[in-house]
């Protein structure tokens, strides 16, 4: 009988018990950097507008004040990521590579449904342990498409979506204002307002608003489209005038005369 082999893919949970014992003894496990986050997407008359805030948190500390949460997947497709920052970064990179290879293989522009299927099948395999919560949007030959993908592998296809800790604040903006056939300016304005609702009402989201507009054959990545949290100029000059600190000029050290001390004994 062949020996039972460990699976070559997937997570190993051997250390779970050990980790629990360590926590019990008083060690604290390291915090994963999470994105906190407000991410949104909506469909307007000519395509997709994606939006994201730019704050990354590690526990209750802001780890990155201006991170990029809108990830490139393909020339016609971008993906916003919420949840564990490392997971969203690596997952989207991986699927981006896969899509490039697939596109070369088929000789066609990638389709949004392809990216969605690759992402959901990957995440489902890891049963939610890869904490990636994504808003995927793109424009392919079949038109504009907008999906949400949850860490456990479920997807939703909708005309307007929000994810992350600020999703409720952002959704309140969409639910009161979204309608079919928005113009480009209205779409961008609505996305900016939704992200700002997240920035100002959710502690996990903050800093600036990134926007990405995807239309047929064209993408506009508007990094830091709005900066509602600029640091104000300092009110006073805080340089000290020369001469503020008194110091005493030290006396030069006295030279010791050379006869003092015995020479070292170097006889063998």
């Amino acid at each position, binding site marked *: 009988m062949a020996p039972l082999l460990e699976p070559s893919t997937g997570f190993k949970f051997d250390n779970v018990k050990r980790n629990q014992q360590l926590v019990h003894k008083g060690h604290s496990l390291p915090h994963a950097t999470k994105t906190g986050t407000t991410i949104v997407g909506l469909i307007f008359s000519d395509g997709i507008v994606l939006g994201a805030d730019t704050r990354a948190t590690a526990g209750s500390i802001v780890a990155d004040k201006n991170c990029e949460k809108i990830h490139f997947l393909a020339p016609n497709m971008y993906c916003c990521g919420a949840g564990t920052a490392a997971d969203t970064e690596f997952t989207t990179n991986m699927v981006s590579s896969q899509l490039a290879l697939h596109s070369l293989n088929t000789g066609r522009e990638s389709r949004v449904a392809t990216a969605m299927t690759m992402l959901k099948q990957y995440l489902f395999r890891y049963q939610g342990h890869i904490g990636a919560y994504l808003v995927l949007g793109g424009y392919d030959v079949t038109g504009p498409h907008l999906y949400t993908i949850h860490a456990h592998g479920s*997807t939703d296809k909708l*005309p*307007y979506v929000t994810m992350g800790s600020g999703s*409720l604040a952002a*959704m*309140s*903006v969409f*639910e009161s204002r979204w309608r079919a056939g928005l113009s480009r300016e209205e779409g961008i304005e609505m996305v900016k307002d939704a992200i700002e609702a997240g920035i100002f*009402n959710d502690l996990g989201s903050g800093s600036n608003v990134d926007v990405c507009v995807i239309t047929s054959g064209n993408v506009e990545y508007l990094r830091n489209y709005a900066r509602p949290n600029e640091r104000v100029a300092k009110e006073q000059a805080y340089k000290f005038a020369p001469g503020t600190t008194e110091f005493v000029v030290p006396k030069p050290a006295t030279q010791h005369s050379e006869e003092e001390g015995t020479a070292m004994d170097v006889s063998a």
Partner: protein
Amino acid sequence: MDPIEIRVPHTVQRPQATTNHGPIAHSLQPIVTGTSVVAFKYKDGIMMAADCLGSYGSMAMFRDERRLLSVGDSTLVGMSGDISDYQHMKHTLENIMTQEYDMDDGQGLGTKSIYKCMSKIMYNRRCKFDPLLNTYVVAGVDGGDKFLGYVDLLGTTYESPTIATGYGLHMAQPILRKRVEGREDEITEEEAVAILDDCMRVLYYRDARSFNRLIRGKVTAQGVEITEPYSLDTNWSFAESIVGYGA
């Protein structure tokens, strides 16, 4: 040798050595509950809304539950949380108002007094580890000043031009902060009703324990008025374009 019998007066309580029930633990889970209350200051006073649902867990059990209460003739109180604890508070407030009436000293209890009274009751219960599992929104026009305050099961209190409880905290408060804050004295009654309806509509869409039957209360210098239940128009046309959940 026989153990010495110590005699103490029978009124002294002696610890029960044989049966130890452990610390007394009161229930900390609400049974029949009401969801969000949304309120904000506008030009003439304060407007408040809540839906007419008493949920029994995930069941929409009581569909004509009134969670807005008029206390005296100048205060409007909105409640979210456990209904039975709300009824207890309601009876307590009615007793207090009756005692005040009996005193017949030419003074009534204004909004700020009622707010103070409720916050002390709530904090006291919290200190005894037996909270009233509610969040209250207290509104009134007290001596010409518009007053809007919040008290919860922990006894936390604060005042603000816009207040929302429950899910409203996450979904209605961002809308209120954008549209009301800074403009309280400019908003007319029509605009106030529109803002409130927008908030309640969003909550009906996204709160799974809400109901499309709500009451609206307003309190002005003239007193308290609570409307009859009404329903909001909803728009589901976006659903026509949705097919499936994936490819």
